[in-house]
């Protein structure tokens, strides 16, 4: 749990159906303290991207884009219409390429949040930035407007790779941008920054990837997000793959690349606090941890998903539909609990895993259910993928994290079988020793 703004558990008495008082954990729903703002505009669409984005051309800028000028009032209107405000402790402005906005436009958005919710002192305010979309002066302006954390979309240090990804920036842009961020951090104007990299790219091999990681480490980012390439439907990459023109590393090499990442970054002092996220001590993203801990968050903007009170709500992905949506349901976020299986899907991504006892009680599972789940998962424990330490369940680093889907599928299968009590639940066979 990361304190304010997320879900917490209280311990207390409740009455069972027989009227007896029993002790149990139950979730306490606080007003969300995290907000995500989606800025859908980009210069162009990268070949792997399936986000809700609006490409505006290579020379677009918030200062003179009619599309951006027309969008921001909608966003402000949605913020202003939010219910039950409590001061925010994290804000994440993502996209798209939100660094297309001018410092003034960003300032206005943050003002909107301040007016509606308030920002707690020391709130983490992250902006996603494209390396070729800003200079020193503009960065200073953004920091002056209130941004204190930057997530830099570097992806690669290899111009050939950047070209093949459909990125607009080149290695030179990336090095220069990182330099400015380092200076800003040294001066105290920026509290933290993160660098994004993509692993498992076409034709990537171990030596190449090692070079990429070494160049990243040389920039000393306090935080690194290293994502495996996912070929999503509808992207240029998917079309290439269908035509057999996307020579991705085979699964074994993919695993080697992931292992290398873990090894090198650990050696450099970074902790792997989530499947794809590494940070120096004290620099884990507070905002992103809300998603993985089952906490509530506001979401604003086209294509954004919010879950202020547990139930997720996705917004339309086009501007017209989003504008129309704002007129009708914008102000009524659904309420409800995130189901047990979703808490596990997100919670097990974290280094610390989940407190199963708490989750189970909150979901109304009996001790017998917990025992059944434990037996069901025994093969995964025997294979060394899942670690059970008292109440705490977590995935082993790196084997369990690398095979997390296999573990999650078993958990989902158990949960589904439990939802159909009329069918006897067969216990799986004991695991083979690998």
């Amino acid at each position, binding site marked *: 749990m990361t304190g304010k703004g997320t879900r917490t558990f209280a311990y207390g008495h409740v009455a069972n159906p027989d009227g007896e008082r029993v002790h149990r954990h139950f979730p306490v729903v606080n007003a969300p303290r995290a907000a995500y703002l989606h800025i859908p505009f980009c210069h162009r669409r990268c070949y792997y991207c399936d986000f809700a984005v609006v490409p505006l051309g290579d020379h677009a800028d918030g200062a003179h884009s009619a599309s951006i000028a027309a969008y921001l009032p909608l966003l402000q209107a949605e913020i202003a219409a939010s219910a039950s405000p409590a001061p925010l402790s994290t804000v994440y402005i993502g996209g798209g390429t939100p660094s297309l906005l001018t410092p003034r436009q960003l300032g206005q958005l943050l003002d909107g949040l301040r007016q509606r919710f308030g920002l707690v002192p020391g709130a983490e305010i992250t902006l996603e930035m494209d390396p070729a979309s800003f200079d020193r002066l503009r960065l200073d302006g953004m920091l002056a407007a209130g941004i204190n954390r930057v997530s830099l979309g570097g992806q690669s240090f290899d111009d050939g790779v950047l070209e093949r990804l459909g990125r607009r920036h080149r290695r030179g842009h990336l090095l220069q941008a990182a330099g400015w961020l380092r200076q800003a951090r040294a001066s105290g104007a920026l509290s933290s920054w993160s660098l994004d990299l993509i692993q498992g790219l076409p034709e990537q091999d171990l030596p190449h990837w090692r070079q990429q990681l070494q160049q990243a480490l040389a920039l000393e980012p306090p935080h690194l997000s290293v994502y495996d390439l996912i070929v999503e439907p509808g992207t240029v990459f998917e079309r290439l793959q269908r035509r057999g023109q996307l020579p991705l590393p085979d*699964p074994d090499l993919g695993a080697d690349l992931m292992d290398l990442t873990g090894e090198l970054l650990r050696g450099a002092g970074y902790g792997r606090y989530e499947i794809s996220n590494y940070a120096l001590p004290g620099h884990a993203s507070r905002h992103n941890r809300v998603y993985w801990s089952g906490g509530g968050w506001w979401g604003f903007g086209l294509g954004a*998903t919010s879950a202020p009170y547990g139930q997720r709500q996705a917004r339309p992905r086009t501007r017209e539909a989003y504008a129309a949506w704002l007129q009708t349901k914008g102000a009524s976020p659904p309420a409800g609990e995130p189901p047990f299986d979703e808490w596990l899907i997100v919670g097990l991504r974290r280094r610390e895993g989940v407190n199963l006892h708490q989750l189970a009680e909150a979901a109304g599972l009996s001790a017998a259910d917990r025992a059944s789940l434990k037996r069901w998962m025994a093969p995964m424990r025997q294979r060394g*993928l899942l670690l059970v330490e008292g109440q705490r369940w977590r995935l082993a680093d790196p084997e369990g994290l690398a095979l997390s889907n296999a573990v999650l599928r078993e958990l*989902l299968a158990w949960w589904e079988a439990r939802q159909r009590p009329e069918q006897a639940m067969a216990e799986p066979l004991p695991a083979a020793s690998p």
Partner: protein
Amino acid sequence: MTDVPVQRIRNFCIIAHIDHGKSTLADRLLQDTGTVAARDMQAQFLDNMELERERGITIKLQAARMEYTAADGQTYILNLIDTPGHVDFSYEVSRSLQACEGALLVVDASQGVEAQTLANVYLALENDLEIIPVLNKIDLPGADPERIKEEIEAIIGLDTSKAIDCSAKTGLGIPEILEAIVERVPPPPDRVNEQLRALIFDSYYDAYRGVIVYFRVISGQVGRKDKVLLMASKTSYELDEVGVMAPDQRQVESLHAGEVGYLSASIKAVADARVGDTITLVADPVSEPLPGYTEAKPMVFCGLFPTDADQYPDLREALNKLKLSDAALNYEPETSSAMGFGFRCGFLGLLHMEIVQERLEREYNLDLIVTAPSVIYRVNMLDGSILMVDNPATLPDPQKRESIEEPYVKLEIYTPNTFNGTLMELCQERRGEFIDMKFITTDRVTLHYEMPLAEVVTDFFDQMKSRTKGYASMEYSLIGYRRNELVRLDVLINSEKADPLTTIVHRDKAYNVGKSLVEKLKELIPRQQFKIPIQASIGSRIIASESISAIRKDVLAKCYGGDISRKKKLLKKQAKGKKRMKAMGKVDVPQEAFMAVLKLNQ
């Protein structure tokens, strides 16, 4: 009582190869005689099983009665008896031919005579049927009726001077066909005054009335409320209903010699009224049944297991129900440590097997794992006893057996002669023994082989079709058992014996089969979280070995607020995919892997 004089009855069937237009022609006859109004016409009226329409083949035969006023001004009753068009059902064909006096031989005017047609024509000739050659699809650009007529004369020795050109699609030649049926097909012999003998040529199960029996009265007459005896099954019934197919069932008081009709008598299962059985009166029985009755014997066997063990009772129930309408289906419980509870089922042939399997999945909503088909082996034991083995996994150990015999078939392939070489090669590979080759026209040949049935029931048919671009056709019939050097080839997955993958092969081929089998399995079994050795063995000797390396990465790289629903959906879908697999030796094995032995040559 229908009062049609025997002289004005014509009973005929249509002999045709799949796709040569039998069903379309039948539909056209029904339409032109006004039996079915054009507006009620569903394409392919006689094939009334959904599966049959989809595959465009007739599995269960049907019959229809038409009234036709001929050029001589008289009204005739024409009974069309449909025949199934596949080698698996040749016994049924022989029974329906026995119910007729004539046959339309329908040949595609561009494609010519095919193996299956020929086999049925010979059956028809044996039954003394008057054969009327019809050249169909005459309207198509590729039609070459003169060449095809020559072919028919050369191959079958039929006079084609009176062959009829026709297009069932456009209606061309239909009046000529109807006239020819009246003129050339002889009326049934008049035996109305003899004792009752009727031949069952088909039956099906009706959920409300019990079994409906289709029959031809050979002699005497039969009516409602009569008490009849089925001579082979030795059961007797009082008839609830007697009628004709016009083509919908229409009740009549009685039917006499020469007529074709149906009856119902609260018969519980088609196995109690088998095709070929003789119906006579309990009160006045004949002493001898009609000749030619045999019980359909399964030739091909496989294991059927529910993917989900909970579905075992449903599978048993479904087989019980199918058995009511399919006398040739045989099954008995089978238990395997690897597969759990299921059934060993016997079928007439591969098509029959596929149909049953598809009906179980489609009509009864079952998820099945089906093991590769096997034949029935005769094992001579050292102690002198003989064991029939239909499941390779149960073949006794070598030290207990003296020898193994396997069923052989006589195989005839008809093909354009350009494909001779490749087909002979195929037959050689499949342990075929060459008997002879005959040119039937200048560019078509017939190849005659004797071959183990086990080699035919694998992918032989598919291979033959693909090697000849679909031009060759084949026919086979069982000729007996032969002793061969056979061995049991076991498969071990993760060091555990996988019974359903066990197969019996010739010693000389064992090494190659073993090697390609483990390679194929390596392809078909998805990687799991641990390394899986896959081995083929004869007895305790490992003859081939492969291993599937462990999967090391299976992870969703990104999961933030908006991704959670999508990721959950994806994981659930993957978990569902696992349901189509069977866990063996703790390894999830997909359905395709159980058929691996059929796919070794691809």
